[in-house]
């Protein structure tokens, strides 16, 4: 690995460590807010409308992945002074 690449890796890892701290705080809040709100409704859906539950499960996974990716990319960009990857 060239010295320039090493500097980039070091900078990325530093930003990543900071990102982890901010992300952990956000995720903790997420557990208590979203999962508690959705939990009851999803259990009911799973017992009464299994096909709708299957569709909602896939949509929730994709939706959460897209939102979390946007959040982490946003934090990373913020920490790196407005520059993306």
């Amino acid at each position: 690995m060239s010295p320039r690449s090493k500097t980039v890796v070091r900078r990325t890892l530093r930003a990543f460590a900071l990102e982890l701290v901010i992300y952990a705080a956000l995720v903790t809040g997420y557990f208590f807010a979203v999962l508690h709100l959705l939990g009851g409704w999803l259990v009911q859906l799973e017992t009464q409308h299994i096909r709708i539950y299957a569709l909602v499960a896939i949509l929730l996974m994709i939706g959460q992945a897209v939102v979390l990716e946007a959040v982490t990319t946003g934090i990373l960009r913020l920490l790196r002074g407005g520059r993306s990857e």
Partner: protein
Amino acid sequence: MFFPISHTHVNPIYLVVVGFLIGVLGGFFGVGGSFIAGPALRLVGIDWNFAVGTDLAHIVGKSVVAAKHHRALGNVDLRLGLIMAIGTIAGAEMGAQLIQALKRAGNVNFVVSVVSIVIYLSISTFMLWESWKTVARAKSRNAGSKSGSLSAKSDESAFQDVTTAIQRWRIPPMVSLPTSGVTISLWIILLVAFVGGLCSGFLGGGPGYIRMPSMVYVLGIPTHLAVGTDLFEVIISASYGTFSHAIKGNVDILIALVMNTGAAIGAQLGAISTQYFAGPKIRLAFVPLPLIGAAIVIYTMFSGHKL
């Protein structure tokens, strides 16, 4: 934390850490990571059927994040991915039918265990030989030069002669893949996808452990593109599997959502890391993954425990 759908108590931090580790592996190697996630869920007391179904749901989310990052890096061949989706789904159905036939014959566990051990060991042995040979050849060629060995985007293969011979089979219709820089018969692409789908239906999971190497060695797709395109394929096959398992009551989506919070960040780290490694080095680092899968199967066969 109590998860009411699967009726289990699991520490959410454990789920986040497992998700993170599998996310890193998925982002870097383009694999679903089911051979680790399934046993990891089983380890904390989640029933095997929930472990398999929930793992598939979590794989969908993780693969979306990793594939999006690979797409931004130019590592996804969408045309190849969409063509392969047809073969993958057909293969997955055939694999599931084979499992049903073996269930009726009463020897499903033994046959699946033996086949999976043979496949995992064969992939690891072959990839170790090929990537080791490629890295060694590049080192000896560049021994005198200042540039060292392999650059991050370098992607040669000791198996290149066979790959080129396969690409010469002109069985119409031929498909041009400008992103990958390859023109190849549609039937060869479908065959590779079908075999991947067959393994998915028969052995479970993504299965990136066979599709990613097949794309590199059979289709001649550069490793970085094979990783990204395989993740795109994993989204399709895992979504199909999630739906199928969810309607059978095998998916605890709350567990999958918690795992995905860790996987989202791990998948990003894995995808970014591929920029700093040459193709043969990624393939060399891939070697232990199927071995871990083989070790788990051997353990369950001889101990009688289902991890």
